[in-house]
Every structure is written in structure tokens, then in C-alpha cells.
């Protein structure tokens, strides 16, 4: 499958809004059982935050770690399913705020929760082709869950960004291989003008998340001659905590290689940002020379899978911006009514 010969992560960053709502708070209101909540709590964007503002924060951290001149970044691709505008790109606002080059290619990608890794695919290709020196791939969402729906427990807010450029000894992690696996699978969707998505309940598991994730992982490992033993960390998309751990069981991956990337238990499912934030958390603790398998999943449906190897620049650059743990430590619990106000669910 496609080998990536000359593209690397030079800077990474994530952003998690400070507000949290407990799963218990939602379960109590809707009369649901509190014994098996999919996540303990989820991150909620404040009333003045959206996909654009969170993308800006994550990208700023990534640029600080990369140490590149923002005016040399000439691609900004934002993957999201919660664009503030139906028509008007988010990436141009991000570029303008960060003072990036005006000679920039920019578009918003949509592929449910794998829109962010679609941006990674695009920017790595642009760098490899020599069309750009540096590019920003961003995944961000203020995920929508219908009040009372099962998704409401997990649909969260967050962003992650990677500055991608050519390989160097001082980079954070170089890409080795990439693959994608897609099919027409209606497990989750939202039509135009609808406020909330629909989903196929249990159908979202076996034929959707598991089939595509496992197919992408098996393809990238099998076709390139890697086994589980060759890989130090596995990063999966996390609609909840159970699903990525179930993938690990199916593929006989030791849990200690999967758990370092688990973020959903602390912040929920941040959709297009989710697997990217998982990678950020792994980069916060990995050592140079370790191999990471990073796989997203997006409903509709498909998975992108990447193999990366961490490099010498990781340890020096890690402390140039807040880590995932530092981001998560700034938290303020809110009640359900505040959550409704922040997420504009009260319509009068």
C-alpha cells in the first residue's frame, strides 16, 4: 500500500475546552441507567467556542512545537462535521488569525469522524509532491447529540492539529505508510438543514466501526509485512472506551499498547479530532524510534490508517506547548442547563 517517503509531523497540538459534563448528569435527567455509561464525562465547548476557535488553539500549539515561520505554511485543511458556516471555509479564518501565508490552499473536509485524517492524507501528499513546504492538518468538532439520545453521552468538543513537512532528523514522527478503507455503510448520517445526526444504533458496531477499522489495520500491517510485535502504540478512533479495546482483542493487541491512546474516558468522543487527540496523547509519552499505528474511523463509512516512527525531535519539542494531560487538567464541571445554553440547544 502507499508508502510515504518524505513527510513527517513537525509539530502537534490539541485543544480541549475547559467545560465538562458528567455522564451521570445526563443519565439522571433522562432516566437512564448510570451503571454502564459509555464515558465518565465529556468536554463541552464554551458559548464563545466553535470548530474555528478550537482549530486555532490546536494549530497554535502545533506551530509552537514545529518552530516554523507561520508565513511558510501554505496549506490549511480542517476536517470537521460541525462547520460554523454551511458555505464559507473554516480554514481561511484559521489561516488569517494565525498569520499564515495568503498563498495557501484551504478546504474543509467532511467524512464524519475521519475528516481530520483526510486532512492528514491531503497535507502529507502535498508535502511529498513538493507542492508545499509546510501544511496544517486539523481535526476539530463540536459534536452534536440530540438531547436524550444515546449519542448525547459521548458527543464532545475538541481539536487536534499537525504541522506536516519534509522528513528531518529533528522531526517529531515520520510517516511510513498510509491506507484507506471505505464502503457505503449508512451507520450514521445527518441530512442538510437537520440539527442532529441519525444513527443505526447497534448497526454502528459490527458492520461499521469494527469492519472498517479492522480492515484498514489488517491491510496496512499485512501488505507491508508488520506484525503486532513491530508496533509500540496503537491509536484508534474512540466512539466510546469499549470499541477500541474490542478491536485490540480481535487483533490480539496487548492492551498496554492501546490504552495510552485512550482519551474518550476523559473527554468523550470528539469526532474528527478523536483519533488525532489520541495520537497527541501518545506523542506526549513516546520515545524516539517507536512505531505508532494510527487509525481513524468515520461513519458512512471508512478508516484511514497510518504507520509512523517517532524521531529525535520529539523529546525536545514536546515541552514547547501544553500536553494532553495539561489540557485536560483545566476543567470546570457544568450542569445540564448550562450545557444546553453553551451548545445553543435552547431555541426560543
Amino acid at each position, binding site marked *: 500500500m502507499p508508502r510515504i517517503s518524505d513527510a513527517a509531523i513537525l509539530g502537534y497540538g490539541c485543544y480541549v475546552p475547559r467545560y465538562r459534563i458528567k455522564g451521570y448528569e445526563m443519565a439522571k435527567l433522562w432516566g437512564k441507567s448510570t451503571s454502564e455509561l459509555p464515558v465518565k464525562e465529556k468536554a463541552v465547548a464554551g458559548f*464563545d467556542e*466553535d470548530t474555528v476557535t478550537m482549530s*486555532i488553539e490546536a494549530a497554535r500549539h502545533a506551530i509552537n512545537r514545529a518552530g516554523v515561520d507561520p508565513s511558510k505554511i501554505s496549506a490549511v485543511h480542517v476536517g470537521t462535521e460541525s462547520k460554523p458556516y454551511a458555505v464559507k471555509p473554516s480554514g481561511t479564518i484559521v489561516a488569517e488569525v494565525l498569520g499564515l501565508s495568503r498563498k495557501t490552499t484551504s478546504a474543509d473536509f467532511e467524512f464524519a469522524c475521519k475528516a481530520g485524517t483526510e486532512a492528514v492524507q491531503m497535507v502529507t501528499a502535498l508535502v511529498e509532491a513538493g507542492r508545499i513546504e509546510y501544511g496544517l492538518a486539523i481535526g476539530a468538532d463540536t459534536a452534536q447529540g440530540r438531547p436524550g439520545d444515546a449519542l448525547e453521552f459521548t458527543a464532545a468538543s475538541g481539536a487536534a492539529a499537525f504541522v506536516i513537512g519534509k522528513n528531518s532528523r529533528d522531526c517529531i514522527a515520520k510517516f511510513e505508510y498510509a491506507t484507506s478503507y471505505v464502503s457505503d455503510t449508512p451507520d450514521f448520517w445527518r441530512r442538510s438543514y437537520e440539527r442532529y445526526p441519525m444513527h443505526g444504533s447497534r448497526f454502528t458496531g459490527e458492520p461499521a466501526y469494527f469492519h472498517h477499522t479492522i480492515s484498514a489495520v489488517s491491510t496496512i500491517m499485512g501488505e507491508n509485512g508488520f506484525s503486532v510485535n513491530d508496533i509500540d502504540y496503537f491509536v484508534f478512533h474512540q466512539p466510546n472506551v469499549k470499541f477500541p479495546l474490542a478491536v485490540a482483542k480481535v487483533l490480539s493487541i496487548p492492551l498496554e499498547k492501546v490504552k495510552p491512546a485512550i482519551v474518550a474516558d476523559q473527554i468523550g468522543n470528539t469526532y474528527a479530532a478523536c483519533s488525532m487527540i489520541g495520537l497527541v496523547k501518545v506523542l506526549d509519552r513516546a520515545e524516539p524510534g517507536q512505531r505508532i499505528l494510527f487509525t481513524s474511523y468515520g461513519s458512512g463509512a471508512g478508516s484511514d490508517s497510518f504507520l509512523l516512527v517517532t524521531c529525535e525531535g520529539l523529546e525536545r519539542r514536546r515541552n514547547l506547548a501544553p500536553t494532553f494531560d495539561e489540557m485536560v487538567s*483545566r476543567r470546570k464541571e457544568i450542569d445540564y442547563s448550562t450545557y444546553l445554553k453553551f451548545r*445553543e440547544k435552547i431555541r426560543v
Partner: protein
Amino acid sequence: MSKPASYWRLRPFVYRLEGSRCVKCGHFHPLVRKVCRRCGSKNLERDRLPATGILRHFTVVSQAQQGMEKNTPFIVAWVEMDDGSKVVAQMTDCEPEDLKPAMKVETVVRKIKVDGESRLIFYGIKFRPSA
């Protein structure tokens, strides 16, 4: 309805605190100016204010202007930036009881308001307590 152009012209300052600084007397002007308002010099160059400062004063707004009614209550702060310039903007990611005079604050870009009719979103600088 707010005119998009009036907001669009403000982008350098409201997004990045970017404006013109007088090379002769050092006075900073928001937005692009050709003549220094303080000394009359025509020697100005583009510059940015620092991204951090000190909180000097603040107040809590409960009666907001059009387009910001749903944001109430919100905090408006007078901040002395690290270069001595003074900027008035909203505070975010904090409650009034978290704030103390002379505490360090930093800039962040957030939604300022949404135009009622056009639904155009105005983004711009706010302050939050420094990490």
C-alpha cells in the same frame, strides 16, 4: 444587519492585535495608519501587541448590546499589555470570582458575536487567565 466590510477591515487588530507603530515615538495604533496621531511622524511600521498582559480593571455586563444578548453575563476587562498598551476586551474561560487585579492574562480568539440577521460570526481577541 452589520456590514461585513466594517468587520472585515478590522481583522488584523481583532484577530492578531496587529497595527501600526510609530518608529519615531513608539506609539501603537490599531489598524493601518500613515501618520502618527501622537507625533505626526509618517514613519510607521506594522507591529503586533504582545499576547500577554496584566488585568487592571474589569466589570460584569448583564445588559448587552444587540447580537450579544445570549452571552450575558460576560466580563469586560481593561488589560495593560506587556508593552504598556491598554486594551479593552472580553474575558473568557473564567468567572468574576476567579479574577484578581494584576493577574496575568493572555489573548485567545473566540466568537465575539453573531449578527442577528445575517448570522455572520464575528471572531476576535478575548483575554483569559494565563495558564
